[in-house]
């Protein structure tokens, strides 16, 4: 079985996370990372408009950052209650399929395996969501750069629905009902599904196990190289810039 680098990034800001992913894509060491978003941030998909999706004033008031991903997909509210994963692998490594749908399916396998660890049955729905009991428990996105695939997503251990409703403008085309009820009908967390407290550590263990199986690799614990850190510290300027965040 092949070996793959595992990095527990701990708490990381969204711009730095994307800079790290890009640095790894450049250098090419296939890597699986777990991380926690801090400070709280609205993460926009590559093609989304800030003005259409985010209540910018409310974000300022609540001290919530706004960030744009290099990957597509929808706006989401990220904070320390959730756990997140990123996989970065050159196409030539064969770890992730090149074709987008197949790659989402591969990541879906990892998440569904992780849910099995909790004796929950997960299913991939649409292009990029994982559901439990017909409700979303994980959202996923991917992009390609430097001939590498970056695949990342959320694992809802717990979720702050009130804050999400405050900071995101949810289009009425997506809502039949309003407010918290709308969200509760569509989003579920590990805590809710299991009706008990779930620690981030427990969720980490499940994701590591789930992705090890799905990617058919053996993880070895490691850290970013000095070189990767240096590159990321340069790239982060792009992801922090107004031009990038407000480009649409």
């Amino acid at each position: 079985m092949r070996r793959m680098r595992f990095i527990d990034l701990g708490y990381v800001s969204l711009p730095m996370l994307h800079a790290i992913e890009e640095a790894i894509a450049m250098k090419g060491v296939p890597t699986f990372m777990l991380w926690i978003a801090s400070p709280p941030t609205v993460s926009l998909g590559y093609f989304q408009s800030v003005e259409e999706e985010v209540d910018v004033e409310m974000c300022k008031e609540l001290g919530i950052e706004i960030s744009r991903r290099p990957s597509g997909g929808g706006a989401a509210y990220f904070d320390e209650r959730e756990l997140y994963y990123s996989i970065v692998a050159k196409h030539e490594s064969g770890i992730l399929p090149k074709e987008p749908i197949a790659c989402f399916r591969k990541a879906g396998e990892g998440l569904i395996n992780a849910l099995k660890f909790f004796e929950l049955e997960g299913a991939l729905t649409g292009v990029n969501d994982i559901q439990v009991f017909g409700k979303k428990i994980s959202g996923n996105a991917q992009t390609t750069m430097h001939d590498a695939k970056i695949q990342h997503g959320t694992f809802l251990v717990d979720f702050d629905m009130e804050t999400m409703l405050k900071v995101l403008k949810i289009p009425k085309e997506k809502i039949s009902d309003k407010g918290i009820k709308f969200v509760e009908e569509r989003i579920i967390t590990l805590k809710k599904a299991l009706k008990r407290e779930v620690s981030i550590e427990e969720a980490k263990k499940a994701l590591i196990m789930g992705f090890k199986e799905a990617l058919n690799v053996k993880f070895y614990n490691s850290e970013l190289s000095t070189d990767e850190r240096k590159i990321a510290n340069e790239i982060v300027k792009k992801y922090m810039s107004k031009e990038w965040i407000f480009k649409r």
Partner: protein
Amino acid sequence: MDIQKIMKKSIYKAKGGLIRIKIKGEDKIEKIVITGDFFFYPENELENLEKYLIGTKISEEEVYKSIKKFYKEKNIESPGLNPEDLTKAIILAK
């Protein structure tokens, strides 16, 4: 004049995500902005599609033909979102 105010808009739900269109032009596309929560590969080609569509006659047939051609030339992959969806979204703008 505020360009935002004279732009026609639409929101269209495709399987792969929500498409938001802002468009300027009566007979032909003068300016178009496509945003939304979809996936489109390679990402930077969406801006090029917006440029490519300038001058296209605003009819279902012409818009579809342009988008289809662009997809083929640039090897676009957009899971759950096809040239038909983008065309519909554009035609719906008012």
